[in-house]
């Protein structure tokens, strides 16, 4: 019986779905690339998922442990600050929040743009180079959504060209 292993080979290394969430936590795009692998949920649930994730992401972005001030920090700070609120602790750069969520069945990668839009990519745990895929998806978004005069910011993405290019790009990855 070699069939199961063959099936396993097919179902690994797949990009399952993409979700795009706007600044306010609203779902502006969702698309499933591969049937199976993930449960199907209703559009309403997608909206809830987007809103919930937005909240969780905001919380994780505020989880910002204080770190003991290092000597280099103190040296550079003492010249610039006038001592207001000076203590032994300093806050590091604000963290970017939740980036990866991994379960035994899938791995969710989150990428936040500088303008606060979140891209969630659901892929198989063995999928390699998700960063690269994410980068390319972002490229496609900037090209075919942001350069489209008929797209209104923060509104749901309905761009044929984006759908087409994204579909062919992900199909290429999933068939590899």
């Amino acid at each position, binding site marked *: 019986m070699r069939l199961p292993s063959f099936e396993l080979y097919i179902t690994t290394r797949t990009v399952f779905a993409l979700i795009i969430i706007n600044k306010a936590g609203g779902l502006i795009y969702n698309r499933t690339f591969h049937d199976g692998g993930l449960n199907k949920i209703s559009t309403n649930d997608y909206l809830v998922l987007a809103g919930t994730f937005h909240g969780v992401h905001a919380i994780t972005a505020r989880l910002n442990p204080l770190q003991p001030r290092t000597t280099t920090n103190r040296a550079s700070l003492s010249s610039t600050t006038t001592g207001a609120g000076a203590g032994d602790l300093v806050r590091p750069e604000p963290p970017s929040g939740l980036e990866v969520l991994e379960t035994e069945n899938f791995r969710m990668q989150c990428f936040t743009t500088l303008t606060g839009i979140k891209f969630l990519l659901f892929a198989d745990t063995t999928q390699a180079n998700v960063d690269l895929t994410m980068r390319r998806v972002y490229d496609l978004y900037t090209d075919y959504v942001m350069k489209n005069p008929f797209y209104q910011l923060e509104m749901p993405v309905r761009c*044929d060209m*984006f759908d087409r290019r994204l579909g062919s790009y992900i199909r290429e990855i999933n068939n590899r």
Partner: protein
Amino acid sequence: MAHLGPGKAASSKEQTGLRYPSNGKTIYHRPLNRTKTAELSQSSFAYLFSEMVSYAQRRVTGIQELEKRLNLQGHPIGLKLLDLLLTREPPRSQTRPLTIIALLHFIKINLWTHLFGRQADRLEKSSNPDTPDEYMIIDNEPLVNAYISVPREMSQLNCAAFVAGIIEGVCDGAMFPARVTAHSVGGKEEGEMWPGKTVFLVKFQPEVLEREALIGKG
């Protein structure tokens, strides 16, 4: 609409006050961008064009009016480009096109290469005997539409109306008054490969065909 013939600058030598380089090449003979490939950023153009479409969209009530506005934005560019491109031709062929075919070839080859870095894909004459004044310039994927997805409720719109305006400007400038419109034909079975395929329909005024017939006889 200024009907400026491209006329050779015969009197250029007589003028005083302007200095001409010894090789005769003025700033009009070369593009401003002198890098090897003389390329521009497609992204910058896409953002600019996107804003042009939004601007045209601001105070219009219908799709036809929007296309008209885009057409008007392109028209002056066509008028000027005709002069510029003819100036850059070698002196021997520096005459404006005198027949419809010569004009359309000039558009398909010279104009398209200057604007988009390649020729237009096809040139056709209307096969319908009722409309002998219609010619078609076909572009499989217009550069201006590279990133544009037209929403479903505006499916009649083709933003290449801007390019149609440029073509119209060239035709008007060469004294072949015409109406040029852009039509998407990518939806059909043939269009699967080129979803953005666009036909520029050039409809000449009756007097142009009249003149053409007279030239043919002579």
